[in-house]
Each structure stands twice: as C-alpha cells, then as structure tokens.
C-alpha cells in the first residue's frame, strides 16, 4: 500500500512538473522569442488574415500558382493523406486525372512532361511549398491569365526561392502562398504605375 501512495504522489509531482510547469515555460519563452510563429505564422493582407505561411490553401483560379494536390482537399481540422500504396489502382486513376487536368489547363499536348509532385498528394495534405521546377511549369498559365510577360515573373520566383537550409539541408523550394502574395503586389505596383502614367498624360 505504501508503494501505491508513493505512486500517486509521484504522479502528482511529475504531472505538475512536466504537464504544467514545462509547457508553460516553453509557452512563455516562445512568446518572447518568436511571438508571431508560435501563434501560427499568420499572414495578413491589410487587416485581413489570409492564411498561415505554413499551411497550403486551395488555389483554383488560373491567375494564381497552385500548390500540390491534397488528399484531404486542404482541410485543416483534421488534414490528411491518401495513404494509397504503390500498387493502388485508385492512386493510378487519380494521377491520370490530375495529369489530364494539368495538361488542359496549361494547353499542353498529351505527351508533355508534368512535374511528378503536382500529380501526387503531399503527406500532410497541407504542403505549403513547391520545387522551383513545379513553379516554372505553371508560369505560362499564370502569366497569360494576368496579362503579364513570363520574364516579369522570373524575378519574383527567384526572390521567393529558398535554397537548402544552412546551405545543406533539404532541397530548394518556393512557398506558394507567399509567391501568390508577391504576385498581387507586383500587379498592384504595375497598376499604380499605369495610373500614374495616365495621370501624367492627362495633364
């Protein structure tokens, strides 16, 4: 019985230490060190929260870059993967359908190359990033939809591309939401420039 009581009291002591004090300490220090990130790295446009830097969102309009497919349709509570195996007919059908859709959206012939990551769903269903190749693939479509020259997008993509972390870890990648935000900014700049020109010519 003595061991039972010690067990009970030990559980209380260790619960207070590891279940209360420790997470609160991390929360406090985290708030001090990286306040924006611990609250979900939210991205705002004006006052409006438009998403999180780390969570993919569904983009369907031709004028935006599209993220990787999501098996859970970009749901966040809870997100999900297909968990389809390497000999799954369902997965094969999905890949074929995605390929057909992408070829059509990009006005490409049936034998054109499509970056494989755009045909296969991510693990989290919320993969916020693409490889530079998968971004390049979409440039003609996005440029055409927005009435931009592909060259105008090149600088944008270049500055949005992150190399391997510490020069070594992971592969080069582009955050899709940040790229689309930059796209809107570019358009806004051009728009105000054009308005400025119009203003000048009217004078």
């Amino acid at each position: 019985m003595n061991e039972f009581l010690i067990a009970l009291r030990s559980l209380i002591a260790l619960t207070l230490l590891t279940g209360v004090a420790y997470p609160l300490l991390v929360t406090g220090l985290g708030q001090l060190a990286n306040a924006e990130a611990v609250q979900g790295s939210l991205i705002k446009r004006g006052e409006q929260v438009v998403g999180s830097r780390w969570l993919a969102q569904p983009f369907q309009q031709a004028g935006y870059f599209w993220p990787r497919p999501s098996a859970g349709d970009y749901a966040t509570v809870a997100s999900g993967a297909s968990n389809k195996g390497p000999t799954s007919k369902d997965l094969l059908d999905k890949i074929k359908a995605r390929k057909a859709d992408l070829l059509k959206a990009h006005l490409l012939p049936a034998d054109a190359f499509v970056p494989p990551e755009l045909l296969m769903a991510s693990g989290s269903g919320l993969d916020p990033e693409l490889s530079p190749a998968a971004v390049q693939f979409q440039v003609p479509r996005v440029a055409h939809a927005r009435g931009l020259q592909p060259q105008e997008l090149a600088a944008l993509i270049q500055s949005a591309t992150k190399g391997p972390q510490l020069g070594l870890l992971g592969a080069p990648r582009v955050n899709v939401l940040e790229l689309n935000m930059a796209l809107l900014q570019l358009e806004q700049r051009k728009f105000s420039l054009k308005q400025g020109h119009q203003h000048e010519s009217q004078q």
Partner: protein
Amino acid sequence: MAFSDWLQVALFILLLLAAVPILGEYMAQVYQGQKTFLSPVLGPLEMGVYAVAGVNPSDSGDWKKYTQGLLWFNALGFLFLLGLLLLQAFLPLNPQKLVPMELGVAVNTAMSFMTNTNWQAYSGESTLSYLSQMLGLGVQNFVSAATGMAVMVVLARGLAGKQIKTLGNFWVDLTRSVVYILLPLSLLLALALVSQGVVQSFSAYPSATTLEGAQQVVPLGPAASQIAIKQLGTNGGGFFGINSAHPFENPTPLSNFLQMLAILLIPAALTWTYGRLVGSLRQGIVLLAAMGVLAGSSLGLSLWAEFGSNPALGNLPFLEGKETRFGIVNSVIWSVSTTLASNGSVNAMHDSFSPLAGGLALFNMMLGEVVFGGVGAGLYGILMFVILTVFIAGLMVGRSPEYLGKKIEGAQIRMAALAVILPSAVVLLFTAMAVLLPVGLKGLNNAGPHGLSEILYAFTSMANNNGSAFGGLTVNTPFYTWLGALAMLIGRFGVILPVMVIAGQMAQKQAVPASGGTFPTDGGLFVILLVSVILIIGGLTFFPVLALGPLVEHGLMLQGKVF
C-alpha cells in the same frame, strides 16, 4: 541520389555518433547518483519531487519492490489519462469545445501513451483539448520514457552486481531520468523548434479568409513542448493527426533534422551509459556496433528502394505522401530511424512508400525494437538477445554460458525467450485474427498484398510499442481499439516483467572467474553472432508473412500490376 543527399546522410550519422560519448557519459553520472554540471540548478527540483512524493531517495529495494512501484505508477498514469480523455468536455483549456473521446478510442489511447507506444486512433486537432494534450499525453510522454530507462538501469545493476539483494529505488531512477535527462533536453529542443516556426499557443483556432475567398481554420495548441519530448522519449504521438508531416509540427528542413537526431539520440547514447554502468565500456560499444550494422544495412536498402521509380504508376518517383521540404532522402532517414527506435512518428506516409522501403520499416519493428529501440526499452530488449546469443554460443562450444562474469542458467534463458516470443506471437496471432474476421478487413484502404501489409503493420507496430502506421487502415473501430490496447499491454509488460525477473536473479549470483572456455562478449566476433541471432529470429518468425505482403507486392509492382 544526388551528392547533397549523401552529404545529409553522412552529417546525420556523424552528429549522432559524436553525441553518444557526451550524452552517454552524462547519463552514467545521473544513474550512478553523482553530481552533474546541472546539479546546482536541477538538484532542488529533484528534491522537490521527492518531497511531494514522500520518497526517501536513499532507500533501496529488491526487484519485487521495484516492480511493484513501477506497476502501480503505470496503472495510475493509465487511469488518470483515461479520466482526462473521457472528461475533457467538462474541464478547462478546451477552446474548441471538443467532446469526450469515445470509450474504446480512449482506452486505446491511454494504453498507447502509458506503454510508450503512442499509436493514435484519432487526430489531435479535431479530438483533444489542450488540457488532454499537455496534462495527459504530455506527462505520459515523459514518464513512459523514464519508466523504460529505469528498467534498463535495473537490468544493468542486476547484471553487474555481485551477490546483491537490492537493485535501487524506482522513484529515484524515474525522477532522475525526467529531471536530469528528459526535461533539459526537451526544453532545448522545444525552443529550437519554436525558432523554426512550430506553434505553441493556448488560443482558440483563428480563422482566415484565403486569397480566393474560402474560409480556412488554423489549428493551434501547445505543440512545441510536446513534440520535443515526443521525439526524445521515443514516443512518437503527433500533436496533430498527420504527425511530423504537418508543417506546424515540422516546418523546415532544420526542424526535421533536429527531430531525426532526437529520435535516436538517447537510445544510441544509452549503449555508452550501459558500458559505464557494468564497468566495461567495451560491453556497451559492442551493442552500439551491432545496432549500427543492422541500422546501416536497413538505411542503405531503404534508400536504394525509395530512390527508384514505380512501373505500376507510370514510372513516377515515390512522391505520394511526401513533403517537398524533406524530399525523399529525409523521408527515408526518418522512416528508418523511427521504426528502428520505437518512436513511430512519421514525416512521410509509410503506406505510400515503395513495397521494399515500407517492408523494411515493418521489418525494423519486427526485430523486436532492439536496434536502438525505445529509450531504455531498446537496450533491455537487445540484452535479451545477448543472453540468447551467449546461450547459443555456449551450445556450440559445449560450455555453460556466461555473461559479464556470471553464469547464465535455464531460468534466465526461459525468461529471455519469453520476452522475445511474446510480442512476436501477438503480432502473428492478432494479424491472423484480423485477416479472418470481417471486422478486421472492413478497415482496409488498399487491396491486394498491400492490404495484408496494412494489417500486419498495425499489429507489428502496436505489439512492439512503436506507434507508426500504414495510416490508411481505419483503426478507430472497437475491434482495433480494444485488441490493439491488449497488444500494446502485452508488448510492454510481457518484456518488462521477464527483464525484472532476470535482473533479480542475476544480481544474486556469484562471479565466476574467466577461463579459457569463456566466450568473450566484447569483441567483433560477438557482434557478428549477435547480429546473426537477431536477424535469424526475426527472419524465421516473419519471413512467410513478409513474403505474402511487401515481397510479393514488389514483384507485382515491377510487372506493372495495380489493385
């Protein structure tokens, strides 16, 4: 594989090996009751725990008293966690107003976290309140890991001790594991993860309006603190359902690299600690070498398989279920690490891996979680194989087997065999049951041989206290939750109890002087023998079922067949 991929593999292995002597030496000081460089800060914390718990740290008992304390502590931890999960709707820190967990899932979850398995039949963000996560799961993340470490320390004392009756004090080993090892490392890792963008918040889920005008809910929670101990304590239960693939759990390649290191850090360093505890560093290095040979082979084969292409899916690379920021190389290092150590967290979906890499993840667990394995659990597990190896070596040369200068006799060999056979029997029997019953087959997400692999993976993971999954299988049905809970219970205590018996028996034995007939257990030959015994036992037990699952699927994939 590109040069940069090789470089990442090499850096991972080098950093892991560099940490072994440093952390191993430190943990030896902790378990020998010595002062460490952290004692001025942590000593008062340790004494505080003893004061609240009513523990006299200088008490020492026999193996029965030690086991009694351990069992009570685990039983109470299970009940407390179960209570939290069932009552969370009526408790604070539940901003999303989540309802109580269903009974079967709650029993399965409480058992899972108490046994250091961390199998999950739920998704955290849609099921668990912040209080359930931190006060329930978070605490068991710490103490289940510390329980494993305590058992390993007792076994080391029993093997090294000469005619002693007492083996130490469970409460001291438990508390020192938490206070001196798990807590400071977790704090460091949690802060590193926060710097990379892992969330740590008690706010309700904010809502966003996406650029195209849709609504997106952003799940939050005190995640960083829990993820740190989840990796360091070989727990593996994700704060979010999709585990370490979720960008909020693992946002960058650096957060990923640190977590991969954390998975293997303590299990690897404990080999060094063990060497110190039994008074011969070589005895620990030999175990590390055997683990290294098996881990290296598994990693090499998995990389080779996963960097191939899939003829059944139009010769595409294996990218389904993988994240862009990790790529194939970091997904494979993770899958091998997490299944060798009984961690079970995933940063890519094992269900969608190539048949061979997925099959190797399965086989890693089938080896009994002794190659690194769970913190403490892996080491006491491989020591069961050591006992079987000296027995077999003894049979070959016709001498009575000895280990660390003491005779190994029938009673110990029976216990070691029991510890090896029990989890394996559970895997095969429960898998057979699931395959034969409609309720077992109902949850399948894949057809053909891959379906068998899904069920086999589930029971292999649970019975070996790993916790990873071929996640397609629907496991929140009563059949899988209740049977799974039983598998995890047997897998944990079906090993711990024989280990404690062996520790008690060995402690009382006299030392026998080494003679010409003594088989040395601290050299290269012993490494080869130990590796062979582990592979032969694992292979003979599971080869038939592996042939029906991943191996036949590999052949069919090469022929371009889909199901």
